[in-house]
């Protein structure tokens, strides 16, 4: 098997994947999505690769490089379909709901007034999230109608119409931590708690939250694997909230970082990714 690694930067995770592939005798060809220039209407381009692993940290570059490669007949993990769902919180929520999975109460509104009505139904505090975005960007806690109105008014001025699609969620009192589960195929290979960032209410290892290995119960495993399946994710970072003793799905990430997770759990995640690719290319 020859692995194509699509990236737009080679960070810790990509270096680990390249090293793991070397250890396991898998040749790797690097494909920087920033340099891709593809004849969409011409013949298939021969990259000399059996399967591609999509690791572009840019959602847009990842999505469209996958689309054109799949159109040429290449197998890309994760697929375009998976990336399209996981990259959009509303599509993710709908896919998870249709799979009967536990979710925080979520409402959608398409105007300022409708958003205020939706928040009245959800109650306060609530959370507003951008449809597309990561690392907690533009995620805001709405404590009361006054702050909600101010934040929504700001969104109306952000220009891009996607910011006027209001994805509103109940605030889940999650014990100042969430769970990040790393799913590969049918297995939760590693799990950790991510604690709220001091002075903030969000938990995200990339922007500084403390992390700690977490025991994977049968319930956690089942929810995580069903969430990966529901979003067509072969490799996924599944985020859960422990709200009042109930596990709720927060997000499914199709291009998960795993430096913190590998460090805190001592699991060779990159090695497991390569093993999965060898068995499922």
């Amino acid at each position, binding site marked *: 098997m020859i692995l194509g690694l699509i990236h737009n*930067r080679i*960070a810790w995770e990509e270096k680990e994947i390249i090293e793991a592939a070397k250890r396991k005798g898998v040749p790797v060809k690097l494909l920087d999505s920033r340099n891709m220039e593809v004849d969409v209407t011409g013949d298939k381009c021969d990259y000399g690769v059996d399967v591609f692993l999509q690791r572009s*940290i840019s*959602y847009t570059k990842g999505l469209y490089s996958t689309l054109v490669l799949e159109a040429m007949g290449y197998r890309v993990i994760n697929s375009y379909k998976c990336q399209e769902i996981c990259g959009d919180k509303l599509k993710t929520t709908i896919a998870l709901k249709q799979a009967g999975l536990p979710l925080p109460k979520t409402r959608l509104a398409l105007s300022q007034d409708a958003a205020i009505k939706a928040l009245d139904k959800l109650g306060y505090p609530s959370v507003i999230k951008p449809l597309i*975005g*990561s*690392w907690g960007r533009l995620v805001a806690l709405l404590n009361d109608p006054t702050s909600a109105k101010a934040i929504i008014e700001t969104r109306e001025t952000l220009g891009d119409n996607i910011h006027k699609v209001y994805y509103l969620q109940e605030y889940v009192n999650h014990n100042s931590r969430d769970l990040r589960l790393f799913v590969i195929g049918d297995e939760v290979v590693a799990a950790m708690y991510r604690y709220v960032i001091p002075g903030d209410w969000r938990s995200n290892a990339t922007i500084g939250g403390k992390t700690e290995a977490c025991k994977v119960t049968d319930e956690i495993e089942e929810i995580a694997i069903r969430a990966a399946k529901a979003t067509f994710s072969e490799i996924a970072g599944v985020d859960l909230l422990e709200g009042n003793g109930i596990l709720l799905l927060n997000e499914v*990430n199709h291009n*998960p970082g795993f430096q913190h997770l590998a460090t805190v759990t001592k699991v060779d995640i990159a090695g497991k990714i390569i093993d999965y690719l060898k068995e499922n290319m």
Partner: protein
Amino acid sequence: MKATCPECYFEFDVEGEVMIGEIIDCPDCGVELEVVSVDDDKIVLQTITVEEDWGE
């Protein structure tokens, strides 16, 4: 190989194999840098602009 941090101008050596696009932290100021070219004994680095659609 020799490298110079474009932020703090610290000069440092980078051991082992280096790839274009690789992320290297400046050992002095700690900023994340990207390898843009690798010549015989010199690596050219640039600072990284995090784009709005980046995420993991």
